[in-house]
């Protein structure tokens, strides 16, 4: 029973990680239809930001708290630069966007290698986050996993509220649903695109900070995550946040269960087979956005 709950929590926390890395992509890919292969490197940028900040801020807890907004801005700014310099010129050419952003991803990896070296770097986690909460029955829940779960949920809530309630959110939704109509209504669509890209990339930076608590910080960390992130958004349905949220947790639990009953490699196969089967049944993903747009 303890093991069962332990596994359930592991599944949920894998889901939280998936959600965090996919959330930014749900904006830039899901809402703007931009296939950004460099998204993983924005996650890496967030992780390295945490590392750099820890060189000057000694308290592990404080540096983590500072790293969250700073990484958001750093990764967001990188995203805006990418949008302004390259992606903006390629909106009608998705295949070119894909290749260009993949190239950017490779360049950013090499940049990280040149600046920080090929070996991994480490950050110290605050003591509070390396422990765990003991529940009755011998069940323990790791604090860092709880923190990531809370961060993921907070990010989803903040993003949802921003999209629903703020004028910016309204503009973003308008552009997503019908770009031409939004443009003739006086919305500066290119500025909205830039802001959306800033938010999406910033969320990747946030994910990077969280991931320093779990795994290695190295030049290739982004590549390992990007496929999972795209899977979540594609299965969740493009243009909808709730799809990504549900799918992230579902895949997390499926992965953890499969892994427990079989092995890690077989669990991955199970997850991929399940995704392929699901997309056969619902090629448009879990949720779809119905619009009158012609595009």
């Amino acid at each position, binding site marked *: 029973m303890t093991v069962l709950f332990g*596994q359930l929590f592991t599944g949920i926390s894998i889901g939280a990680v998936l959600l965090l890395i996919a959330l930014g992509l749900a904006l830039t890919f899901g809402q703007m239809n931009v296939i950004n292969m460099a998204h993983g490197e924005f996650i890496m940028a967030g992780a390295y930001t945490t590392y750099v900040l820890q060189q000057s801020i000694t308290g592990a807890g404080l540096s983590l708290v500072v790293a969250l907004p700073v990484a958001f801005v750093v990764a967001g700014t990188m995203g805006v630069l990418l949008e302004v310099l390259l992606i903006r010129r390629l909106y009608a050419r998705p295949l070119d966007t894909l290749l260009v952003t993949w190239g950017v991803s490779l360049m950013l990896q090499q940049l990280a290698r040149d600046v920080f070296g090929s070996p991994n770097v480490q950050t110290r986690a605050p003591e509070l986050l390396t422990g765990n909460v003991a529940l009755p029955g011998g069940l323990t829940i790791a604090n860092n996993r709880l923190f990531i779960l809370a961060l993921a949920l907070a990010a989803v809530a903040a993003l949802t509220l921003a999209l629903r309630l703020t004028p910016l959110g309204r503009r973003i939704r308008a552009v997503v649903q019908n770009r031409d109509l939004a443009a003739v209504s006086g919305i500066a669509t290119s500025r909205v695109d830039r802001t959306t890209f800033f938010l999406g990339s910033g969320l990747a930076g946030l994910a990077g900070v969280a991931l320093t608590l779990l*795994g*290695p910080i190295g030049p290739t960390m982004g590549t390992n995550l*990007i496929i999972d992130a795209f899977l979540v958004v594609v299965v969740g349905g493009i243009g909808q946040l709730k799809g990504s949220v549900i799918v992230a947790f579902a895949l997390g639990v499926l992965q953890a269960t499969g892994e427990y009953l079989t092995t890690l*490699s077989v669990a991955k196969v199970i997850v991929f087979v399940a995704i392929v089967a699901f997309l056969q049944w619902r090629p448009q993903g879990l949720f779809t956005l119905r619009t009158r747009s012609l595009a």
Partner: protein
Amino acid sequence: MSLFRDRRILAGAMTLVAAAALTACGSKTSDEGSAAGVTADVSGDTVKVGLLNSLSGTMAISEVTVRDSIMLAVEEINAAGGVLGKKIQPVGEDGASDWPTFAEKAEKLISEDRVAAVFGCWTSASRKAVKPVFEKNKALLFYPVQYEGLEQSPYIFYTGATTNQQIVPGLDYLKSQGAKSVYLVGSDYVFPRTANKIIKAYATANGMTVLGEDYAPLGSTEFGTIVNKVKSSGADAVFNTLNGDSNVAFFKEYKSAGLTAAAMPVVSVSIAEEEVKGIGTQYLEGQLTAWNYYQTTPGAANSKFVAAYKAKYGADKPTSDPMEAAYVGVHLWKAMVEKAGAFDVEKVRAASDGITFDAPEGLVTVDGKTQHIAKTARIGKIGADGLITEVWNSGKPVAPDPYLKTYPWASGLS
């Protein structure tokens, strides 16, 4: 643009990325080149040697340090006048943590650069990928990392530990500490799988129980479930054969789950001083490692090695077992060449038996029959300063036994 079109493009992109990842699992070796050996070019006043290490990818964390210490040995030898009066000219290649790339680069070093010997490789998968290349070309590889044994190529010198110099002493140590059960965690490739086969045979013969066995793909960083399984197994100890980045995620998860070195020690065979730095002592303090060398190993040869390394690469750079074995490999090659009086591969091999070197780890002796070296086994504990302190050693160099022929319990292994 329609959603459908996007998805097709995305699928294509993912196939590309996945294919790039999958090629790492292949074991393609090139078949081009002549069947006869390519002779090294030693006509000038320099002699070329090849350095084949991953400077990028998941193994770079470890292999870059090996490259650095090989360069140190090369510089030392050149400063002392070179080998047979010729200065060594190193030719570096990046194996990129990708096994077919290793085979391709090995072929290039041998056939195009015509090097006298190659130093490098880390993972057994990369060694298995280049082995046919060296055998076909009759060229020499000096392999510096502990490995799973059960191999003896005439064209490879193994300067790291084979199983009876590392894994078996590690198990002996656990047994002497009263461990009755172990859990095996490893990366999914040839070294951990073979090592675990040996561990299971040892356990059966020594009254130990193996409570579980789990493998994670190289580069995997999600260990929630594996740590859950380890924890609920209640094993006395964990034997860890994970390689590369996975160790970081594993130990972070291990500590978060409340598991400690006191309650359930982890014996690792792929974590040396450099990896400790990359994982963080916060997560590793008190855990055990099995090696033949630590930065703290006493002796004048080691003081000199550590000082030279730090002077060249920075005071914060630790020295580790594979680095030391790589450094020793270059010096042993020099000694073999000088004893043979030639760079010719067959003459060097014939001269190798009985060559000794006062290595940082202590005296090592080349066994010409197996082309492994006799070395002292050591168990160490990771300290808060990131260095590893010896808690046990074998007292004298252990003769290499790659096929474990002198251990009755290992008779079923091959």
